[in-house]
């Protein structure tokens, strides 16, 4: 449990620095502002989605489903995660806005942009 907390702290710290790379205002307002404030590791969550769903299309579908009705049971994160972080509240976004925000989120954390050859 302690390990998860420490890990999350470091991850959040790293994310805070990477996110200085110009996130769009809607992403900043709708997602990252709360994640940063509550130190929720956004990139870690994205990686978990990648780990399970692989394609942006599937991730988007799952994210959309989750964000319209967020529950611990349907979350990608393990139950222990919610011991440290609060359960997500429903977003006040309509479907179009939510869809756009998810696209921006996926684009922002896209691993293709980070991968480089040695």
């Amino acid at each position, binding site marked *: 449990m302690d390990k998860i907390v420490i890990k999350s702290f470091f991850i959040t710290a790293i994310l805070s620095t990477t996110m200085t790379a110009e996130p769009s205002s809607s992403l900043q307002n709708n997602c990252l502002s709360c994640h940063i404030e509550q130190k929720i590791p956004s990139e870690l969550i994205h990686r978990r989605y990648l780990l399970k769903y692989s394609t942006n299309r599937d991730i988007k579908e799952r994210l959309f489903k989750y964000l319209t009705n967020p529950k611990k049971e349907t979350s990608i994160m393990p139950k222990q995660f919610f011991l440290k972080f609060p359960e997500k509240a429903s977003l006040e976004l309509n479907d179009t806005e939510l869809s756009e925000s998810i696209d921006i989120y996926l684009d922002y954390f896209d691993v293709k942009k*980070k*991968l480089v050859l040695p």
Partner: protein
Amino acid sequence: MLSSEKRSLFRFLSIYLSSTFILFLLATFIFYDYQKHQIIDIQNAELSIEAEHITQSLRQLNETFTKTLTYPQKEPFKSAIYDLDKGYIFGSFNPKNILWSEEYYQEEKRLFHIHPLFPYYLGASYIVISKEINPEPIDHLLKMSILFLFIAGIFFTLLGLFLGRLFIAPMKESIEQMNRFIEDTTHEFNTPISTILTNIELIDTMYDCEGKEELKRIEIASKTLSRLYEDLTYLKLNHNYHREIESLNISKLLEDRVEYFNTLIKSKELKVTQQIEGNIILEMDKNDAIRLIDNILSNSIKYNKKEGAIEIGLNSKTLRVKNSSIGIKKEDINLIQNRFKRANSSEGGFGIGLDIIGQVVERYGFKFSIDSTYNESTEVNIRWIK
């Protein structure tokens, strides 16, 4: 070694070596193909191992949150990662036309391996990894296979020669025995035949006695025996006989030989028509020419009807002898030159006549043809100008 022995040995070796070679070629090809697949499998295993290394690196990268993620790349391998929809994510190469249904495949000189992933580290569902085929072990295998074929070829040729000689030894012995018998017999024939012929001639010139007809029959029979002796001697000595090629007046020789057969012709009451151009010269051995002409004339008389006809024609290109014979069946014409072949089993002779004709014709590069209408006529043509 006699030509028939050489022919038998050559035929045996041809069949034996070609079948052995085909068998060994097939076996070597199967072995080469199997071994080549083994080599490719080993190289495929290297791809598989490297794919596992990349998987481990991707697992670490998936838990790394730095600004850049360094893709695991190691020479001589090229690799790329693909998502679940087979969409390209990243890699050190981007191959076209990937055969997704294959785990391993070969394209030109490269080996490819598709390594599935789960969980999908960095979203990667597949690693496509490739490397150039190392040609060295395959080249070595090919060289060894060719060397094996070559050594096996030499070994089996020598074995074939040994076996061939072993197999033809009894045949060789039989031929030698037969030749010795013919040689001894013909030698014993010579003196009495010569004596008979000389004495008939002497009786004919010195005494005007009764029984001239009987004497002629004896002369014909003796001449037949004499020719047989000549033919057998010719066949026996054919291999070692030293030929004296000279400018031979065939016209003169033909007339002489017709004269020689006169007794035989008269006895059968044959009508002979001669169209012999004068001074036709051929470069050949006299004995060969005599054997050729004698056998053609002899056969045209022997296989003729009583009171039949013979047409003898000679010009600068051909010798033509046509008779009103019993004829030869079409199916027999191709077999006619085989030794001991006779057109009519009721007639005498050893069938060696046509064989001698065939040998002379072959030696001098003449063209030999027989045209026959069954129960009508037979025409033999010897053509020396192409």
